[in-house]
């Protein structure tokens, strides 16, 4: 089946939905379709708990856009592109107000303005929130407004391939999950908004099962470079057993991190900001504590404690209700009574599809949100800046797409391209195949956690690269056991695993190549930041043979020049 739209948006998280909404508002005559492998409200935006940064000045009257830019650039370890950061922070107050205007139920200060709380790595309290369900409420608000505007959704469609002709966008090929039919969407503009890829760390990841980087992998295969892939953020406070997330808001509200001696050990690593240091620093400090034997021991591995008890039952119930629920469900711990067992968990991918202000190397293809690397987060993202990123660049991409789409011409998607994709899917069911999905995925998660984790060193990174390479080799013999066509989740698992393996290789090879420590990327053998040699973005492209080749790109500087980063 062939569909035809002016604009096709892949992904229905906050970024994709805002892009859709903005496109129909900007130009009601363009036709817009949103394709998503899950129903929109299932998207991972819903899991963002803490909040969204904007220099509204409701709390700290003297907060400014410039300070927000500075915090973000410093937090990025100076790898962010400052033109993009300027845009991000300058648009922040208006997009947050706009979401408020559209019905997002923000928590309030006594004077009725949007409440703001402190967050990691910032000099002012500028994180706007709705209890600890901020992402959930923003996602639902955007979905509601898309329903209001009659946006067309194709739910449970899986992205198979991004199509272009000599660098001009032609559309996407998808799999209708309900029927397993291959359906093409011819479009003059495609906006990729497929979310992150940190699920490649599997059990040591806070991410949803579907954060498998489908858009990134499709872009990579279409020839768009992936940028800064070595930068994976480990969130300090994942639950011990599941890796599920305890929001930074818990520390923002005053929670303590304790080792088994009952010590607030962050005093030794970030004496000023303590628990509210930036995420890379806090995660690394926790890992060091665990390595040095200061952690608690359990069957589920070593851990530290997040203590909220001193905040009192009232504050916990009102401001962190979901955290309390999660702790009780998944650890059997009520934070009013006991500290929560935590350890760092892979959480966010700073790297992604190389995009300049959301535009990629293929004309008519945009990338936004976590799947993209517009380079606002650099080597380390600040808490509260990811919801902001999807709102600001979702809106911008939607606006630009609505103006650009009518100007562009498309030829369509060739039958040969469709045949190639169909052939690949059929081949998975081959009887000579024997490798199992679960085993390859388990080994991928383990090797990424063990060898490409928080602390990195050449020997282990080489091992990681080799192991991912051999898993990719084994993937060629993976067996699809479910040969039915109705809602075949076994097939989706295999397609997602293929995407994760390609991206895992990008992460491992770029991590091996970068001979310095910057932000979330910490090399034990190169513990210092080396601006001379490495103050540049890494680019990763994939050849037809599946081999990765690496390249570099200069960082766009601005007002703030390189400085030592301390908290």
């Amino acid at each position, binding site marked *: 089946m062939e569909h035809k739209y002016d604009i096709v948006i892949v992904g229905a998280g906050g970024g994709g939905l805002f892009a859709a909404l903005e496109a129909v*508002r900007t130009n009601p005559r363009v036709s817009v379709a949103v394709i998503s492998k*899950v*129903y929109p*409200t*299932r998207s*991972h935006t*819903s*899991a963002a708990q803490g909040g969204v940064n904007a220099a*509204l000045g409701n709390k700290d009257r003297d907060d400014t856009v410039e300070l927000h830019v500075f915090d973000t650039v410093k937090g990025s370890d100076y790898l962010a592109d400052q033109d993009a950061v300027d845009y991000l922070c300058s648009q922040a107050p208006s*997009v947050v*107000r*706009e979401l*408020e*205007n*559209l*019905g997002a*139920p*923000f*928590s*309030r200060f*006594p004077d*009725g*303005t*949007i409440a703001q709380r402190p967050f990691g790595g910032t000099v002012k309290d500028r994180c706007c929130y*709705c*209890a600890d*369900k901020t992402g*959930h*409420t923003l996602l*639902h*608000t955007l979905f*509601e*407004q898309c*329903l*209001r505007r009659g946006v067309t959704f194709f739910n449970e469609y899986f992205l198979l391939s991004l199509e272009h002709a000599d660098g001009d966008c032609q559309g996407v090929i998808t799999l209708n999950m*309900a029927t397993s039919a291959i359906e093409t969407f011819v479009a003059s503009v495609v906006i990729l908004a497929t979310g992150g890829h940190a699920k490649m760390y599997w059990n040591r990841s806070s991410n*949803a*099962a579907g954060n498998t980087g489908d858009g990134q992998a499709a872009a990579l295969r279409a020839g768009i470079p992936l940028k800064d892939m070595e930068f994976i953020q480990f969130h300090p406070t994942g639950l011990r057993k*599941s890796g*599920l*997330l305890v929001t930074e808001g818990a520390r923002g509200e005053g929670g303590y991190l304790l080792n088994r001696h009952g010590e607030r050990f962050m005093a030794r690593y970030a004496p000023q900001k303590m628990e509210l240091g930036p995420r890379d620093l806090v995660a690394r400090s926790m890992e060091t504590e665990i390595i040095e034997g200061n952690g608690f021991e359990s*069957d589920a591995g070593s851990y530290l404690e997040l203590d909220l008890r001193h905040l009192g039952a009232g504050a916990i119930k009102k401001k962190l209700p*979901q955290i309390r*629920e*999660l702790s009780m*469900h*998944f650890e*059997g711990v009520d934070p009013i009574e006991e500290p929560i067992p935590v350890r760092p968990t892979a959480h966010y991918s700073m790297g992604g599809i190389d995009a300049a202000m959301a535009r990629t190397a293929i004309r008519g293809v945009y990338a936004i949100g976590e799947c993209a690397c517009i380079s606002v987060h650099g080597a380390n993202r600040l808490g509260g800046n990811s919801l902001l990123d999807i709102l600001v660049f979702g809106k911008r991409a939607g606006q630009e797409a609505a103006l650009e789409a009518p100007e562009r011409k498309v030829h369509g998607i060739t039958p040969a391209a469709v045949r190639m994709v169909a052939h690949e899917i059929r081949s998975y069911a081959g009887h000579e195949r024997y490798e*199992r*999905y*679960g085993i390859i995925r388990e080994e991928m998660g383990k090797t990424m956690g063990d060898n490409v984790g928080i602390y990195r060193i050449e020997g282990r990174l080489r091992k990681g690269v080799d192991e991912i390479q051999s898993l990719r080799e084994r993937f060629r013999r993976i067996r699809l*056991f*479910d040969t*039915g*066509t*109705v*809602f*075949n*989740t*076994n097939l989706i698992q295999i397609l997602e695993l293929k995407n994760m393996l390609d991206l895992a290789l990008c992460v491992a090879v770029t991590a091996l190549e970068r001979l310095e420590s910057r932000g979330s990327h910490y090399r034990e053998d190169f513990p210092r930041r080396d601006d001379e040699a490495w103050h540049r973005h890494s680019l990763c492209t994939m050849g037809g043979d599946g081999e990765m080749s690496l390249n570099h790109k200069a960082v766009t500087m601005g007002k703030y020049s390189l400085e030592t980063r301390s908290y």
Partner: protein
Amino acid sequence: MERREVSFRIYRYNPQVDRTPFYDNFRIAVEKGITILRALNHIKEHLEPRLTFRAFCQAGICGSCAVRINGVSRLACTTQVWDLLTGSGDETILIEPLDNLEVIRDLVVDINPIMEKLKRNYSWIRPAIPEEEMGRKEHIVSDEEFETINASSDCILCGSCYSECSMMAVNRDYISPPVLLKTFRMNNDTRDTFACERLREVTTDDGLWDCTHCYKCTEHCTKKIPIMDGIHRLREEAFERGMTQTKGARHAQAFFDDIRDIGRLREVTLPLRTKGVLGSIGMVPLAVRMGLKGRKPPLLVKRIPDIERVRDIYSRLEANRGES
């Protein structure tokens, strides 16, 4: 780590190959601390790759994995296997798809009807601020106003209440609890300008007044939202806005009047007062069938002896209006 053998009895149906649904049994060793979702994943990865279910966030916030577990709708990802064990020798946990929705395959149901109903019932804010002024300034909203809608904005559209609703079980066209909850959430948002039209839409047939107050939606809400309170509030709002001429509103008013006047219901004239003369004609065959089965409401209903005490309750409720 404690481990136990547990049987999972799982509903299976693939319309492509199965003429009728059936149940499959999988016996696995389960550790303490494992959720139903982890068990389902284990079965899919090690025993039956064809087993089909939805799951995404694994943290109780996306709403994908709602299924019926031992007959009760809940999220697979937040339900601990251990909590369901009885301690008897043979531990079996029954897993079935949500009720009141069409099964696509195994545990996957078609949730489009929920989306369609949200769309039909204006489940969004229509803000007062004109398009061109969006983003310039924020509304001032008091903490109390925020708290009024706070719990209702927790809804993750998992479909558990939809599955448990006793009205849905007899009428698939019924508006459904999550849509009524959204209506409550929007109508009590001080920033919205569409409350009246929205309420008019939800008070049409198969709407607000069809709820039977069974409270199953509230009882089984995976986010512990007091959905029924929202439904009651919407009914009050309908009266406050003078939307008293729908069948449902007249029905409620008739109950209210009868109990106040005589302390019991005048059943015989109830259809007349609810549906009017023409509407009641259609009820005649039902009345005849009821009569034949011996179900004959008394023609003359006497006032109960202690009617003053009933009226006292009315006046006290009247005095406390608005408090709950």
